[in-house]
């Protein structure tokens, strides 16, 4: 028997085993998936917890519910991968051998990497919302907050769902208006980028939305440290930004075992071929989802589209045949704008987000780069689709590769 070993039972790992189990002969291939805990989080839901839109219970499910028959789920913490011996060692002493390894352990916010962040103000006036604990703590803080300077901050790119901090700012603006205290709040968005977003057209559009909402944009801010006693962010070039309430997105890093195993880059992500997800160093190791070093958004949609092609390629690869499907970096994301509206972005390695309709040209029903109610409902319907369609590896009615049909470049100059 051969074994496909998948590390991490999050969005990417779970989708991989669901896609591959039906494609690999059960008499020939065992599939084992490892995770350090038993609970699957719907991570896109974190954004809505601080505003009370989603309860924590709505966005967690037991992992085992999404693991198909014929796949063994092992709970344990990964200690090290030994590529030359083709084994993975867990911290409890278990040793798992493999013929093909798929690393899907994602990235994790690491507030400990910024001096001063996790000191005495952590979870008092400094919060994150990329963890369930953080989102719940922030919900409680926001419910009783009386106003002041609310600073939304990105430490460093790349991060998971790079539009989520902007969405947080838009939703916070709407939330504070509803609470009737928006006029007592100075809302500031701090980014290491030179605009609201990287890609020019989306950046201009989203930057305009910050303006309309009276949200101050601070660009090119590379944080060196937090001064918790003075309640300021301090940059490498000695700019200071004071806050009363800080909502920060810490640097995102891959798992420590990736570094310990000598498989990671400077952020513990695994260098892979950007079209096939195969490790640049080992021809029996792949990295999927956020754990890979792909030059595109770390997002569930990227994982979803890339795994469609990965699954197709993988069955050829294990037979010694060439991999012919090539991932194009396709990603899309709904961007909540507040007040029941959302935008949609659709892009890949080569084409930036453009205005238009999606997935069908002209018809939509979703509008690209434009705030509509349909997009907002699309975003919320996605929670259902995540649990029921995406994780079980069923096909979403969306093509894996990006298309420019239905998109326009005319508005580029606006």
């Amino acid at each position, binding site marked *: 028997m051969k074994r496909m070993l998948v590390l991490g039972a999050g969005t990417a790992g779970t989708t991989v085993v669901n896609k591959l189990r039906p494609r690999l002969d059960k008499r020939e291939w065992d599939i084992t998936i490892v995770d350090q805990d038993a609970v699957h989080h719907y991570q896109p839901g974190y954004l809505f917890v601080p505003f009370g839109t989603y309860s924590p219970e709505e966005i967690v499910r037991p992992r085992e519910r999404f693991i198909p028959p014929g796949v063994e789920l092992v709970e344990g913490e990964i200690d090290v991968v030994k590529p030359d011996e083709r084994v993975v060692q867990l911290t409890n002493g278990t040793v798992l051998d493999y013929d093909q390894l798929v690393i899907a352990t994602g990235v994790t916010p690491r507030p400990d990497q910024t001096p001063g962040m996790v000191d005495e103000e952590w979870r008092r006036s400094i919060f994150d919302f990329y963890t369930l604990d953080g989102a719940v703590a922030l919900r409680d803080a926001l419910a009783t907050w009386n106003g002041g300077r609310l600073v939304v901050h990105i430490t460093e790119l790349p991060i998971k769902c790079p539009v989520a901090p902007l969405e947080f700012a838009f939703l916070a603006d709407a939330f504070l208006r509803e609470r009737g205290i928006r006029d007592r709040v100075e809302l500031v968005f701090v980014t290491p980028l030179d605009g609201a977003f990287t890609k020019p057209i989306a950046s201009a559009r989203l930057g305009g939305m910050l303006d309309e909402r009276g949200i101050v944009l601070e660009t090119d801010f590379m944080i*060196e440290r937090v001064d918790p006693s003075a309640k300021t962010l301090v940059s490498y070039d000695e700019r200071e930004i004071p806050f009363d309430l800080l909502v920060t997105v810490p640097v995102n890093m891959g798992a420590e075992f990736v570094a310990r195993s000598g498989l990671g880059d*400077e952020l513990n992500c695994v260098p892979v071929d950007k079209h096939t997800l195969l490790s640049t160093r080992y021809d029996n190791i792949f990295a999927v989802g956020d754990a890979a070093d792909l030059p595109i958004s770390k997002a569930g949609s990227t994982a979803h589209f890339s795994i469609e092609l990965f699954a197709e390629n993988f069955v050829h690869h294990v037979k010694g045949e060439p991999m012919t499907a090539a991932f194009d970096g396709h990603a899309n994301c709904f961007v909540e704008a507040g007040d029941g509206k959302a935008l949609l972005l659709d892009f890949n390695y080569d084409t930036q987000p453009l205005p238009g309709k999606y997935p069908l040209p002209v018809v939509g029903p979703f509008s690209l780069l434009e705030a509509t109610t349909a997009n907002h409902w699309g975003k919320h319907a996605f929670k259902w689709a995540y649990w029921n369609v995406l994780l079980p590896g069923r096909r979403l009615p969306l093509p894996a590769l990006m298309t420019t049909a239905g998109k326009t470049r005319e508005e580029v100059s606006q």
Partner: protein
Amino acid sequence: MTLATMNGQDVHVDDEGFLTEYDEWDHELAKTLAANIGIELTDAHMNVLEFLRADYKEQGETATLRRVTTMGGTPTKELFRLFPKKPAKKMAYIAGLPKPVGCV
């Protein structure tokens, strides 16, 4: 893609003035590019530029600040001293490499 003349030679640049041909770069050109943005090159600058050039050749992408710090060994604070305000962009410009993409 347009042609610009620097130090008496034609070089290919994009619309922001970043060199688009890896092999058109040399140390003399680096001095000129640096002078364009008000930087006088020292050995400390050159160490960073050499790392960026070598890393790009291997990786096919311009290194991020973090990569220059962790793999190239120059502290971020020092990068801000050498290439004030926008080190990632300025380093890439002087090293004749594409502007680093914020991975989004």
